[in-house]
């Protein structure tokens, strides 16, 4: 699992650190506090699994003691759900999916040459090449880059710190210290993601972040947001899941019944979307009745179906060597609290015995309370895995107040709202009810 995250100039975050990450992490905080940014950088770093050689061209190697070739990786062409990672994120922020101004060209050898003209001459990253990995580094045959990669690749990852030239390490990272073992360094050069790109020079032209700990398998990164809830599954994902996940649809049916008891007696199948729309969706079939697309039901049911189907598939795929990462934005989306309570319980049940690290971002106190309640009532063994981070950004500095289970419980019990840094003056209050037999160890 990722234990620690150090961020340098990613979107609104000039610098920041998230420490002591758990298996279940919840990001809360005001708007523009960096919650989605953290999900996005975890996603981009997580899917970075296509091996490549990084060759820095403008650096006098001997003088800087730099290896001429650095082992690196770039994002996969498709993420777990079959979506193109960078285009997906660019579209979320109102840009074209494809970055047509990427200063990169395809080389005759099937590599990518990037020339960042805005950077000063002699800077380490002014121009570099990404070359498909050599066979001796892996088992599979070499994969040349294609023209479409030029507009979809704007980031790379380096897995071992000792390979990273000093001049590529922002001073921030020295300040915070990043462990050399099991750390992954990510570099992103598309200006829309870089904090105040236009005002910077040299290394600050990059958004850079380091992840400490065991990274997820790039194929096992599930980022679920509003768009996933609304869109049909990509055909490539649905077909793959039906062919490879044993009893996938039955598993989805069971989970859905637990969330929506009215589905008792029904079963769910995944099939082509109606009216020849691209993609596949779920169909609910009661005996002797016409099957109906899940999309015709309420939005909450559609959301639940999509997220449960995705996570059921991910859960079957992971193992200790290939861990999963589940990023979920706004679990409360479209959900009635009663169904949300059951959905969260199913989600925890799905990940509790699996090597899947979870990051949720939410604006909902109900989500926080129901998640805590679920851990209290049904999954006490998971309580120590909970971390809630209340975040804020001030002058680019990311602050995060971390709450473990006992902290969360204290806040909820006391009627405090841990989503806000200041007392919220709202025309309502909430009360978290502890079970009658609940007892706390007193500190005497």
């Amino acid at each position: 699992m990722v234990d620690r995250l150090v961020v340098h100039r990613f979107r609104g975050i000039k610098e920041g650190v998230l420490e002591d990450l758990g298996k279940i992490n919840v990001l809360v905080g005001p708007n523009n506090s960096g919650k989605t940014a953290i999900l996005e950088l975890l996603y981009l770093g997580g899917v970075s699994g296509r091996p490549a050689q990084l060759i820095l061209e403008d650096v006098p190697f001997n003088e800087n003691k730099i290896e001429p070739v650095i082992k690196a990786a770039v994002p996969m062409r498709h993420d777990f759900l079959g979506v193109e990672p960078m285009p997906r994120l660019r579209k979320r922020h109102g840009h074209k999916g494809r970055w047509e101004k990427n200063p990169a060209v395809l080389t005759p050898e099937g590599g990518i040459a990037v020339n960042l003209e805005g950077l000063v001459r002699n800077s380490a990253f002014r121009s570099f090449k990404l070359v498909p990995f050599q066979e001796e580094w892996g088992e599979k045959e070499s994969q040349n880059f294609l023209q479409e990669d030029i507009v979809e690749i704007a980031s790379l990852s380096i897995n071992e710190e000792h390979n990273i030239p000093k001049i590529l390490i922002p001073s921030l990272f020295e300040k915070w210290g990043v462990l050399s073992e099991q750390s992954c360094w990510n570099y992103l050069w598309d200006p829309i993601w870089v904090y105040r790109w236009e005002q910077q020079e040299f290394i600050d032209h990059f958004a850079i972040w380091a992840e400490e700990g065991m990274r997820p398998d790039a194929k096992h990164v599930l980022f679920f947001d509003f768009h996933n809830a609304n869109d049909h599954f990509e055909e490539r994902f649905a077909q793959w899941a039906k062919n490879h996940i044993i009893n996938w649809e039955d598993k989805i049916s069971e989970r859905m019944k637990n969330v929506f008891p009215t589905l008792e007696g029904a079963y769910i199948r995944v099939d082509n979307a109606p009216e020849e729309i691209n993609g596949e969706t779920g169909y609910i079939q009661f005996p002797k009745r016409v099957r109906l697309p899940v999309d015709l039901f309420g939005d909450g049911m559609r959301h639940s179906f999509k997220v449960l189907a995705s996570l059921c598939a991910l859960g079957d795929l992971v193992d200790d060597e290939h861990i999963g990462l589940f990023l979920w934005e706004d679990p409360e989306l479209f959900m009635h609290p009663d169904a949300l309570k059951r959905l969260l319980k199913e989600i925890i049940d799905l990940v509790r015995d699996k090597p899947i690290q979870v990051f949720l971002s939410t604006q909902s106190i109900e989500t926080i309370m129901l998640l805590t309640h679920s851990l209290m009532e049904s999954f006490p063994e998971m309580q120590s895995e909970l971390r809630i981070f209340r975040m804020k950004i001030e002058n680019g500095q990311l602050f995060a107040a971390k709450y473990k289970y006992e902290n969360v419980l204290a806040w909820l019990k006391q009627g405090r709202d841990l989503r806000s840094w200041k007392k919220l003056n709202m025309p309502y209050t909430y009360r978290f009810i502890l079970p009658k037999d609940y007892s706390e160890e007193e500190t005497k």
Partner: protein
Amino acid sequence: MKIFPFGEGSTDKIVFELLMEYLNENEHLNEEEFDEFYPVDGIYKFAKEIKDTVEGDVKSNADDICILVFCDLDKGREHQDILNQFKDIMRGLLPGWNGNPIKHTEYNNIYLFKQIPSEEMRGLRIVLHLANISGLGLPEKIEASNNTTDGYVLALGLEDGVLGRFASKDVRTTSDVLHGLITECLPNCFSAANIEFEQDKDFLAAYFCVTRFWVKHRTEQKRNLTEIIFERSKKYDKDKLKTIFSSWIEAIKKAGEPIQ
């Protein structure tokens, strides 16, 4: 700065909220900085509740943090016992902190524990208010008993401006009569029956009784009595409220001051 107020019981919460209201009406106070008041239900629970509540904010290094605590002082309990408890709380939040409590120059029942902010670290302060009901005009036997928030409420309730209003409006007698019933007659009856009657809580119960509070207001909520005592004091004898609760007010104001 973010301020986390704690107390021992529900009366502390009621009084704190009424005083905050009073201070907002009369003095400049940044109410937004004060989080919800939480009664921990017993002095031994301060350590766990405070740690569980504030450690995330302290470690985030995002804001200066102040912890405001209203603590009762039971008969026979020394200041030092409680101060040691709060030193441990400071150390629990800031490992390596080795400061000492600073006694308020004017109020000997207010103590400050602090870590002054630096470039690397935000400030942390505990403002500890120990209840002290001596000098509030209460009968000696009450003063000799426990020091709790009820004593302050009782002292305010026994002031002429407040008790006189109960006497004339609700009971149709004089404040002297009610005062005698609360502080002499009822306690003596209990003593004569060998029933202990010496804590401020006992006297506050007598206050409920003789002001015919339950009859007139048809409620058993203690909050209503405290609210009415405050309302009447504000209306008829504002200075007394300020005098009797002066140390509380000072503790709240101290909590709102920058840490330096």
